[in-house]
């Protein structure tokens, strides 16, 4: 039932003469029970967007709606959202129990109900017997779990998380985010998760909103974002990508010294050609293929990461199956099986060979 809509949301910091537009005309809709990730590089406005939903920043324009009701005029303590912060989230002078009970006490619930709900939420995050500890007696991961319990115990309509695990080590981060996802699925709560870690977003999200410089670049399922990035920025930012310069002319696009087919809709103009490292095969013939010298091979389990220095194209990164015998310093011939043609700000054309 709870849905969240950001409508033309805008935030401007700084002075009138020297404005800093942190969030520009952002439109994001989050469906009921959806887990949405906002992903983007540092400084792109992710936190600012989330903080406008929570009520800690006042928008310069636009609207935030929960269940089609604007919440923009509500102070943060009145909003049906709960936020998990990146760090320093717990109140150091209160025990874990009191941290979680604080919001319930404000709602004047009876004591035994508070006890029950605090205990239930501690168990939800796997810290059933930690109620008596002070935050300083917990590890970083445990503190973030308590912060999640504290947010969930209030049964918010929308759960907001601003890089909640980014201060933890890699293994713990992976474990906690999977736990979080499980909890979110079980409770069917609507959640917005901010991260700058694409792997985190790709593995967690129902949909990802990719932002750059305050603007929404693409809002899609992870697989779509990866396979069909809408903008050059997304193509470059998500996953590994070889970006090559090309020139479209009459149904072909010239890349280096080779001609590749291009859709009829492409205009005759320079273009950017984006090729995923895995969308390349090694061939024998020189037909429609480039050649280059292998400069580095690393074994990554079920495939190899190979760097190729091509006289035409510069350095390329390829993921090749282990069945192919290749060695450092060898020359190889290779051609793409799939690529995207970007021209101007339009969505790219996909070409499969």
């Amino acid at each position, binding site marked *: 039932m709870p849905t969240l809509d950001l409508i033309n949301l805008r935030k401007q910091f700084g002075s009138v003469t020297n404005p800093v537009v942190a969030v520009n005309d952002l439109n994001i809709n989050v469906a009921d029970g959806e887990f949405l990730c906002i992903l983007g590089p540092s400084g792109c406005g992710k936190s600012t967007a989330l903080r406008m939903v*929570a*009520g*800690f920043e006042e928008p310069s324009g636009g609207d935030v709606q929960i269940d089609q009701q604007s919440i923009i005029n509500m*102070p*943060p*303590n*009145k909003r049906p*959202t*709960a*936020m998990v*912060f*990146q*760090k*320093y*989230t*717990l*109140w*150091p*002078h209160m025990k874990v129990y009191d941290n979680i009970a*604080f*919001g319930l006490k*404000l*709602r004047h619930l009876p004591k035994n109900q508070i006890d029950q709900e605090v205990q239930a939420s501690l168990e939800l995050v796997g810290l059933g017997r930690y109620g008596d500890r*002070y*935050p*300083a*007696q917990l590890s970083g991961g445990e503190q973030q779990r308590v*912060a999640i319990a*504290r*947010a969930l115990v*209030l049964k918010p309509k929308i759960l907001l998380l601003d890089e909640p695990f980014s201060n933890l080590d890699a293994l713990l981060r992976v474990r906690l985010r999977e736990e979080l996802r499980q909890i979110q699925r079980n409770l069917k709560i609507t959640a917005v998760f901010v991260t700058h870690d694409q792997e985190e977003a790709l593995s967690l999200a129902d949909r990802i909103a990719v932002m750059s410089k305050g603007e929404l670049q693409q809002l899609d399922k992870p697989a779509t974002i990866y396979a069909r990035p809408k903008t050059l920025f997304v193509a470059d930012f998500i996953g590994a990508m070889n970006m090559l310069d090309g020139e479209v002319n009459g149904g072909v696009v010239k890349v280096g010294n080779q001609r590749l087919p291009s859709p009829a809709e492409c205009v005759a103009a320079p273009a950017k050609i984006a090729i995923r490292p895995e969308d390349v095969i090694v061939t024998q013939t020189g037909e429609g293929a480039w050649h280059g010298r292998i400069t580095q091979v690393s074994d990554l389990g079920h495939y190899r990461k190979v760097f190729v220095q091509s006289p035409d194209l510069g350095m390329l990164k390829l993921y090749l199956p282990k069945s192919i015998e290749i060695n450092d310093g060898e020359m190889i011939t290779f051609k793409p099986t799939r690529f995207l043609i970007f021209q101007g700000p339009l969505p790219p054309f996909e070409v499969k060979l």
Partner: protein
Amino acid sequence: MATRSRYLNTLFAGYALIAPPLIILVLLIFYPAGQAIVRTVMTDQEVGIAAGLTLDRYFNFFADPIARSNLWFTIWVTVVTTALLFLVCFPLSLYLRFSSSRIAGIVQVLALFPLFVPGVILAFALIRYLGPRGTVDTFLRIVFNYTGFVTPYLKPSGIIFALVWDHIPFTVLVLTAGLRQVEDSVIEAARDVGASGLRVFFQIVLPLIQRPLLIVFCLNMIGIFGSFTIPYLLGPAAPQMMGVYMQQTFTDYLDRSGAETQAVLSFLICSVIGALYVRTVTRRRGERA
């Protein structure tokens, strides 16, 4: 063995480093102070009679109505000034901590300004400003033709006014430093779960700045209790604050043991507050780091 001797070496180096100030402290402060305390409880040396213990000097002090009123007056000024300091400095510090406006910078400079003004200069400036025929008096007379201005000069309010002025910078410095230790996210998290501004202040901010709060409280109390220049220049002839009273007893009445008794009493009162201070700063944060 090697680690042990290295340990002893660092230990020795540590003591060697703190030895000079420690020796000075003992020779110039603790030893004479101890002597003075002992003298106040000894009977006067008379020929043929051995010195004995006595509390007569203290009984005499409390029997003297002037001495009593001076002591009460000092305590009263100390409490009122400390209370006023909190009233003035708390809102100021909250503003400095939480405001992002540019005026905050100017306010901060103004609040810290008295730090760079010596007490004597402050006292004379206040006399010129608030005294009879001073700036304020003249201004009211000329602009509003108002002649009812009552100067605080030579009145308790004069002392309190100047002492508050004098202690604002230190109080604001410590309070803002304490408030800056409270992270934004700690406050926002409380707002987020539904706490109003007032509740955040009382249940989150106040408990978290307990320590700096107690520290300014103690240091202000001790500083104000023992102040001399400002009450000497701005205060009434009677009652007097202990600092002024001691000085008068010592140099005007040439009553050395009387002054010593007053000093020891003042010291005892301040050491109660001092103990609170020491407990505050040395308390292991224990369960909450």
